[in-house]
């Protein structure tokens, strides 16, 4: 479980550090204050040796393209000369993890003529890279548990094809749920079936839809639910936030002992459903040992979070953080459960 996250030069964020992270963390703040970027930073660190993750993050942002024009979008002010740093401390072990993301440039071939920049004595060798077109990202991951083992991977476009190198499996696992991926059930559901955990998922879903008795993939890969009607029904059509609930349930089940990132949790959920979903998230997080990071703009979502945290066993582990930004300076403000309840009772703005 992450205790601290430090971010430098990722997208809009110049520098931001968040300490005392809880098991379930809700980030609030005004638009363009870096909430989604914060989730992305955790996503990148979880998959620090999977260089394709940044591409997934851009897809979630509505940029599903493979183009050299987009590599700069990860860097602050679109300036790839300043590397991205994402650091974290693990709660129990105090292990420090660090991911550096640098621009990747094409390697000059042996017969490629050197540019005049490179041979100019007035320029350092490193500057020569800025004269070539950025073709990808290079990710370097280190951990204080094994500081000599530096894992470097890269993703880049070579001869028009997306290429990766150095990809390695890591222990920590996580998933990013956003409005664009909410209906992406097929693979996760198949995994639940493979692990024979379907009954447990259905049991969890009964908290919001008591009539649900079965879930199955049909012949074309569409997920369908039995809620006592004459025919099975796709959860997409069941309303009541069941689609969001199912996405989160499958994610938390599939990523036990890992991390679940949820952008815009309130999206598509009525207030009463938000209360139920928070109760479920808080209970699942404890039961499945999942650390959750979510964002919201909605005060109803914040209130549901606060009220739900009240009724669960581990209220001290549920935290809200407001991200504040003035020009290029960012900071986080931590709310414990008690402070959040006092603020909401007084209608003092927490977002």
């Amino acid at each position, binding site marked *: 479980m992450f205790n601290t996250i430090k971010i430098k030069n990722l997208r809009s964020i110049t520098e931001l550090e968040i300490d005392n992270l809880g098991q379930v963390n809700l980030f609030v703040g005004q638009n363009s204050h870096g909430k989604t970027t914060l989730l992305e930073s955790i996503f990148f660190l979880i998959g620090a040796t999977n260089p394709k993750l940044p591409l997934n993050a851009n897809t979630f942002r509505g940029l599903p393209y493979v183009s050299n024009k987009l590599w700069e979008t990860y860097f602050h002010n679109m300036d790839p000369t300043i590397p991205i740093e994402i650091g974290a401390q693990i709660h129990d072990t105090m292990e420090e993890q660090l991911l550096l993301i640098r621009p990747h440039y094409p390697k000059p071939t042996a017969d490629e003529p050197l540019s005049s920049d490179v041979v100019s004595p007035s320029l350092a060798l490193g500057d020569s890279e800025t004269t070539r077109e950025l073709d990808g990202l290079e990710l370097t991951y280190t951990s204080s548990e094994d500081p000599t083992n530096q894992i470097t991977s890269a993703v880049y476009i070579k001869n028009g094809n997306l290429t990766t190198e150095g990809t390695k499996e890591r222990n920590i696992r996580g998933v990013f749920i956003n409005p664009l991926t909410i209906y992406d059930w097929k693979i996760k559901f198949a995994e639940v079936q493979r692990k024979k955990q379907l009954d447990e998922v259905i049991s969890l879903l009964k908290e919001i839809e008591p009539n649900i008795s079965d879930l199955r993939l049909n012949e074309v890969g569409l997920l369908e639910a039995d809620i006592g009607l004459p025919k099975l029904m796709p959860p997409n059509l069941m309303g009541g936030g069941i689609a969001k609930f199912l996405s989160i349930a499958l994610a938390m089940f599939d990523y036990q002992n890992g991390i679940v990132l949820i952008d815009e949790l309130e999206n598509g959920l009525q207030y009463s459903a938000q209360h139920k979903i928070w109760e479920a998230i808080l209970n699942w997080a404890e039961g499945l040992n999942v650390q959750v990071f979510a964002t919201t703009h909605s*005060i109803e979502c914040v209130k549901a979070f606060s009220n739900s945290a009240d009724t669960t066993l581990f209220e001290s582990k549920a935290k809200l953080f*407001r991200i*504040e*930004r*003035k*020009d290029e*300076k960012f*900071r986080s*403000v*931590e*709310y414990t459960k*008690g*402070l959040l309840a*006092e*603020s909401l009772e*007084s*209608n*003092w*703005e*927490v*977002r």
Partner: protein
Amino acid sequence: MANPSDPMTPIKSNKILAVEGSDEENFFGALLKHINIADCDIRKVGGKDQFKDKLPALKISRGFLNADGTPFVTHLAIIRDENGDDAFTSVVNILKKEGFTPPKKHGLHSNGNPKIGIFIMPGTTIKGTMLEDLCLESVKDHPSMKCVNEFASCVCGLETRPKSLSKAKAQTFLATQPDIVNSVGLGAQKNYWDFDSPTLDELKKFLSHFK
């Protein structure tokens, strides 16, 4: 731009008056208007049991500090009833715990950042322990007070007396007015208390730091 239907209120003024509850919020809203202080954010922080929890929440609410962490609020004044406890010391201890610089005495403002003022009701110039005492003192020469005092004498002879004679008298005074309201704060908004009475001079001097 704020959503007009959104009940959440970010701090808008760099001067905050922290009072106990809605009654005080209404009373001081009317008094500040009377003395031409418009730029002030009145916040309810509860009495002796709630202040210790409300102050840390107020300190981190949006707008108390600028977004970059630099101070926005320049003045924070706390007004509380005496209520039988050592209210001044209690408020000072809570302020110190939260890192604020309290003033040395009741009625003064510190030189901290923000400047902190503490006023314990009803002030040092009159007897009593609460806002109602101040309100009643301001109208002590009002013709209605004869009726109010006779009522007070009468109820004092009862076997079961009101827990707070000041509150009972204040309610009785309000009941003598043309349009009856049931709280001293609403009474202030109806101009039933005499804001020009010298009784309020100590309080008005304290509030003048907000000008």
